[in-house]
């Protein structure tokens, strides 16, 4: 499968990128690591006139701990840089765990945190070649008007399959979005729509430039558990991130997020409430697991049955919560 022809735009600075975007808005795709975009372009999921290659923008690369204890991460920081950051591992371990499970080492050397946040939603009926998709009559996410996994609904159920966003949601991360009117900052939890087709709130002339981890999220115990068939390469079939801060054995604060079982990564809102003030034990972990499983709405978008994947959200949540409670 050949790549469609496109014009390659290579800005050196964020402003330049933003002006390129404004000029080509609607007919440009953004390339950060390219690990997802390039195969998708070969499959003709995207045939943009231009590709905006951000890799020359050095200001968007790197992990910067701020004096306050907060951290700023450039969107172009590679997942392997995050995985290997001693600082993040010490203060925001859930993020390094999440980053370390993405794909394979080679892909983590290319893939970026910004790309993982913006990762296109995935479905067996969507991530296929043009020829294949013709055979199934296309789907609602691309070129068609039918959802093959949940017909009747006109909604796209492609699953969001990033590994770092659940961790970032647990850390109350914010993202900086640059556009023609300057930069704005929103909480990551506001970033996703919950619809598989238009899965993120990002205008055609905007791009994600930075991620912020607030100082208040530092030094939580954090665990990420990922369901996959193989120990490497695979996207998550279900994923659970949990962070816990304890005081005298009781949970002082906790957050839990799930991924790959909905069109968006989701904070399980009531999980924190259930955990705060308690001592974590098997029964409590079980109850949180049930809650997380109820939040998950997997459909047949990937390998393994939806029933099983939801069941694993329950098991993995229980395990993650128990692991986070271990001293």
């Amino acid at each position, binding site marked *: *499968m*050949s*790549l*469609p*022809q496109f014009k390659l735009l290579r800005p050196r600075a964020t402003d330049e990128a933003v002006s390129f975007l404004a000029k080509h808005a609607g007919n440009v795709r953004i390339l950060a690591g390219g690990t997802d975009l390039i195969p998708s372009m070969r499959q003709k999921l995207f045939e943009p006139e231009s590709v905006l290659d951000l890799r020359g923008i050095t200001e968007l690369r790197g992990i910067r701990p701020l004096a306050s204890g907060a951290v700023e991460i450039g969107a172009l920081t590679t997942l392997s840089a995050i995985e290997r950051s001693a600082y993040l591992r010490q203060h925001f371990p859930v993020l390094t765990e999440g980053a370390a499970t993405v794909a*394979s080492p080679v892909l983590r050397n290319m893939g970026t945190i910004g790309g993982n946040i913006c990762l296109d939603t995935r479905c*067996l*009926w969507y991530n*296929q*070649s043009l*020829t*294949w998709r*013709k*055979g*199934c*009559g296309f789907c609602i996410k691309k070129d068609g008007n*039918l*959802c*093959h*996994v*949940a*017909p*009747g609904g006109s909604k796209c*159920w492609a699953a969001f399959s990033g590994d770092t966003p659940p961790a970032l949601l647990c850390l109350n991360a914010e993202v900086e979005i640059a556009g023609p009117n300057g930069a704005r900052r929103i909480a990551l939890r506001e970033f996703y729509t919950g619809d598989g087709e238009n899965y993120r709130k990002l205008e055609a002339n905007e791009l994600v430039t930075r991620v912020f981890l607030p100082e208040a999220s530092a030094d939580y115990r954090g665990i990420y558990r990922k*369901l996959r*068939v*193989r*120990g*490497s*390469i*695979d*996207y998550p079939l279900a994923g659970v991130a949990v962070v816990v801060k304890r005081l005298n054995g009781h949970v002082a604060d906790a957050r839990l997020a799930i991924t790959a079982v909905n069109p968006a990564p989701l904070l399980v809102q009531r999980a924190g409430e259930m955990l705060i003030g308690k001592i974590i034990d098997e029964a409590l972990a079980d109850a949180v697991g049930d809650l997380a499983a109820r939040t*998950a*709405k*997997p*459909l*047949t978008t*990937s*390998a*393994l*049955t*939806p*029933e*099983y*994947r*939801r*069941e*694993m959200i329950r*098991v993995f949540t229980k395990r993650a919560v128990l692991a986070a409670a271990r001293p």
Partner: protein
Amino acid sequence: MNNNFSIIGKPTAMIDAAEKTTGAGKYTDDLSVPGMLAGKILHSPYPHARIKRIDTSRAEKLEGVVAVVVGKDAPNPYGILPVGHDEHALAFDKVRYVGDNVACVVAVSEAIAEKAMELVDVEYEVLPAYFDPEESMKAQSDLIHDNKPGNLEKDYHHAFGDPDKGFAEAVHVAEARFIANEVTHAAMEPHSTLASFELDPHTGKLGRLTVWSSTQVPYYLQHKLSLVLEMPMSQIRVIKPLVGGGFGGKSEVIPLEIIAAVAARKAQAPVKITYTREEVFWAHRGRPRTIIDLKTGIKSDGRITSVKARVVQDGGAYCSYGVVTILYSGALLGALYDIPNIQYDGYRVLTNKPACGAMRGHGTVNVRFAFESQLDELAAKAGIDSAEIRQRNLLMPPCITVNGLRVQSYGLPECIEKTVERSGWKRRKGKLPKGRGLGIACSHYVSGAANSIIRSDMPHSTVNIKIDRDGGVVVYTGASEIGQGSDTMTAQVAAEMLGCSLSRVRVIAADTDLTPIDIGSYSSRVTFMAGNATLRAAEDVKKRIAAAAAKKMNCPAEELVFRDDLVFKKGSVPPVVKKDQAEEVEVTQAGASVSGRVEGQILRGSLQQKRKDEGPKEWMTFEEAVVAAIDFHGALTGTGSYAPPQEARGGKHKGAGVGPSPAYSYSAQVAEVSLDEETGEVTVHKVWAAHDCGRALNPVSVEGQIIGSVWMGMGQALTEEMVWKDGMLMNPGMLEYRSPSSVESPEIEPIIVESIDPEGPFGAKECSEGSLAATIPAIANAIYDAVGVRLHESPFTPERVLAALRAKNNSKRLNLTEGVDPTAPARFREHGGSLCFKGKGPERHALDPARREAPAAARGAD
């Protein structure tokens, strides 16, 4: 035991290793010839449809498009089996699976060809399609092939001994249905073919055709090209460059190989086509989804009295190797254990899916999974240890099995013994912590089919050897190196027989203009057959050298010994070779630099000069002997060939031609696994794999093959499965078709068992297929040992294991598709049951069997 050999039996690096590891080696897709065009194949979007009209005019008008090829450009049907000529280069009247080949666009670039493909207008009349073989067999109309009533490609019904009497004698009987889901080869190199015509010097029109292709069977390709293109075989040259793995997926003529040649003819220019990974999945020819209804009876001492198997294979839309596959499934119930009575009913069924074909362990693997699982069940019933019950059912070779297979060398007893010993079986079986278990299983495979696909009396392998004046040995063999070590084996056998160093031997292989006929790399035949042919060719040429050397040395030729680049009189102490020369030989053997080799030659040359006028000698160098022979005979060449002996060619019943082999390899394996009982995830910790390969010509290569077989078997056991929905292959890529990664690879301890076959070259048998089949049941049996769950459907994905565990524990039920219980699968499901597609799926014909049932209520997982 190997001390008598100087080359074989020693771990030897593959002779093409440098090319492959440095990236210098050329695979077909690396090749390019001047004026070469790119070909792209348009595939069918429908599983079953009549082509009413193809209009290529819009595509042809696109700038850069040179030709558009359609079915009528090559109307002759072909197929790998003489009984299965049911394929066309491009669809002639009908398409029969999603991905079937409709047209081929030839253009100056791949991108333009892809664009033009979208401009080919095809009008289809959609027909009802068949996806479930048991449904397909009931078809009355809209047959997949008009000449195959009931969509039945072939069925066989064999009874050997008296199966019913056997069951009457049995004390314990087990009967169950097993389902093995569909898997594919997933070779690293996608198929690629480059076809180029020369101009005929007399007419100026297109003349000879040269085809470079990623194939395991250059000679069969040449044969089929001749059939389709209506050209004499001598006008077609097939060259096999480096091949990046075959596993059976390149052991027949794959559509692109014919299409490229037809396209090159129409475009009047060289055309290269390389499949995308998705196209590789559509070309497929992998292991069919198989339903096995198996019944086995044993006496109270564990002796098998009778076996009855009904096997249904979901063969896909074309015959391919199907007739052979369904026969192997029955025939290879024999030759592993002593089974007095066998009944076999095999059905190869056509469905609207890509054709299945030969895949590593061709025909045996799925039935072996069922049989070894059931034997384990029976052992438990009879209270006999699982290893012990296998030892009680051994053959007593030399013998001929009840279904006519001749068994001579038989290393199975030692294989079982060694795996039991190394794995600590007696000490540990049944005593591991909860959730951890050990399982044992055995398997075997042919060392080459005793009967060729194309019926003829032609030898299966022929090898020529030419020796140059400086002692360089060139072996011409049609055997196809596909990564398995064929070329290295050839060089080793020639060097051993000629007593020269390995570095002298150059192998020219698989080029139909240069190399004599060899029927290819399939059915694990190369070491045994091409090895024997090489041995005989080397013997032939050695005789000539010996005659000349004997004259010089004044002794009978029979008294000469060839070894270590020397020729000396038998019984005489080999002369003390000049130290520097001996070192030089050592060094080249390990792969020394070119300059080292040249220096060695000069050195040896001067040595020759010095010794020229000396009288009769006690010894000569290899070169001196070669020079003497060339001075005497002129060109120094030899030929050898191999045909399996008549007594190894099997019985007389219908279908008796498949299964017989001059020798069988044997394998026993113990797997240690653990289970996560909450998630159903299975971890394989270690596999002890003993394999009887007759004699290990290259132990490191044998070990590699054993490890590779176990690893590939583990993929089929745990993660690999082709998933279907209404004829759409849902996972046509390496991301969603999950071959294990290095992370899942367990420690594998290969154990080489050498039974020294009386007919194999130096006693060698096959080593690359026989081990695979044991891995799947070894893992299944280990799962049973760990948690008491008997899985009857492969692969043992976490959800299947969990569903089975929950069913056993009566805990909360985990619904798989249609409430299937993986411990007792009853019905065949199109999508294998690992995924439940509740969606509408693609548009299909209203009469599709898949559409007859009301679709499940559309809803989410909750």
